[in-house]
């Protein structure tokens, strides 16, 4: 009989303790961020989709070596380049040199797993993560990024 | 109260009495429709639903018969207990949910109608033919009166009913628990 009542009593006591905790929490400030009204700043290392890095002249640093393409596990990077001849002054004489110039750098963000292998494998520091996270669309095509185009738009 | 007094003048539709009459007619229809569903529906669950509708109507009848207490007990016991028990039994005992329960045989339908019609006709005719003589009331039949009567005049019956209920509960448990051992 004693156990019967003590169990009821202990049960009620535990319930009261629980209610006390939620009561205290009731008066604590709200911790959530109302997303569209407020936004958070992404941390410096935030890994968004990749973006081409430009040099001082506003041209992509990329030399189209294709390391990122090879390193990518999901094959979401496709790039193309063409060889252009250009002239440099070297020791007083003009020489024609060949250089690969990036003509296309597409990122298929739908398959990207944001692992960072491409950035890690780039020996030239030509790609970096963007801090963009407001990416929502109902169309698949919106996630096929033309990074060269984006670079141009950023510069203009 | 003498019924003939009330019958002498007809109330207007929009007075309190008239509204009461309208509601009564609605409840009357409810009772009859519920009864028809209860005895005629092919699915048993619908029959129970009809029974509930019918009992709600019957409760309203009781209310009009000056005994709200019995009306509420009707709802509480029939709707809240008996009908739920029946519905439970249907769930437990008829796995073929969609099986239609038609009439028992080719003749049973007409036979049923004839029997039921004869009985109804007989009872109705008897009711209409007989002159019921109202007697002077000795009390108002309030809840208080019922309580006093139950515990004085009918106390023995009251106790017996309690025993019957107890026995039926135990009996029901014993019968229904057969075949399932824990």
């Amino acid at each position, binding site marked *: 009989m004693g156990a019967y009542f003590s169990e009821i009593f202990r049960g009620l006591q535990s319930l009261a303790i629980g209610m006390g905790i939620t009561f205290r929490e009731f008066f604590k400030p709200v911790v959530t961020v109302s997303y569209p009204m407020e936004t958070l700043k992404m941390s410096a290392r935030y890994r968004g989709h990749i973006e081409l890095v430009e040099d001082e002249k506003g041209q992509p640093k990329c030399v189209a070596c294709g390391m990122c393409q090879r390193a990518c596990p999901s094959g979401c990077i496709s790039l193309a380049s063409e060889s252009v001849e250009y002239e440099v002054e070297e020791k007083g004489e003009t020489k024609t040199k060949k250089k690969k110039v990036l003509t296309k750098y597409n990122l298929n963000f739908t398959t990207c797993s944001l692992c960072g292998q491409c950035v890690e494998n780039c020996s030239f520091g030509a790609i970096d993560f963007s801090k963009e996270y407001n990416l929502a669309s109902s169309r698949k095509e919106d996630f096929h990024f033309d990074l060269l185009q984006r670079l141009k738009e950023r510069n203009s | 109260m003498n019924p003939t007094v009330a019958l002498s003048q007809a109330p207007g539709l929009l007075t309190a009495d008239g509204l009461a009459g309208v509601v009564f007619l609605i409840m009357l229809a409810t009772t009859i429709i519920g009864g028809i569903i209860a005895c005629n529906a092919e699915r048993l669950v619908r029959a*129970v639903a009809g029974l509930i509708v019918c009992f709600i109507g019957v409760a309203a009848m009781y209310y009009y018969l000056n005994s709200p207490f019995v009306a509420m007990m009707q709802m509480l016991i029939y709707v809240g207990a008996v009908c739920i028990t029946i519905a439970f039994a249907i769930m437990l005992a008829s796995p073929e949910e969609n099986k239609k329960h038609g009439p028992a045989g080719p003749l049973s339908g007409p036979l049923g109608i004839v029997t039921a019609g004869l009985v109804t006709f007989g009872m109705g005719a008897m009711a209409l033919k007989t002159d019921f003589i109202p007697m002077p009331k000795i009390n108002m039949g309030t809840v208080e009166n019922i309580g006093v009567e139950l515990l004085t005049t009918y106390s023995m019956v009251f106790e017996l009913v309690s025993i019957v209920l107890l026995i039926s509960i135990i009996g029901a448990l014993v019968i229904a628990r057969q075949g399932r051992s824990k």
Partner: protein
Amino acid sequence: MSILTLHNNLNTYLLLAALLFGMGIYGLVTRRTLIGMLISSELILAAASINFMAFNRFTAPDPTVGQIFTLFIMAIAAAEAAIGLSITIAVYRNYKSVDTEDLVDLKG
């Protein structure tokens, strides 16, 4: 006599009770399952109760008697429902059916 004063007329209730009784009889005759028959018998009990209540209201000198009797009917009906349904379930466990036609096996 207006249609709106029907609720003050004994005959209304008696006819309703007769109708419900008839429905109950019809159900008892035509239903094939135990539960269906139980439902029909509830209708018959309701008809009887209405009669009690009607006479109680219009003719009986002591208007508590009918009410008390109706209450007893309710109690008995509840008991009957409980017992009837437990029997139904027991029958179902043994026969896998509550159809009255299937319950012809006397050996149990």
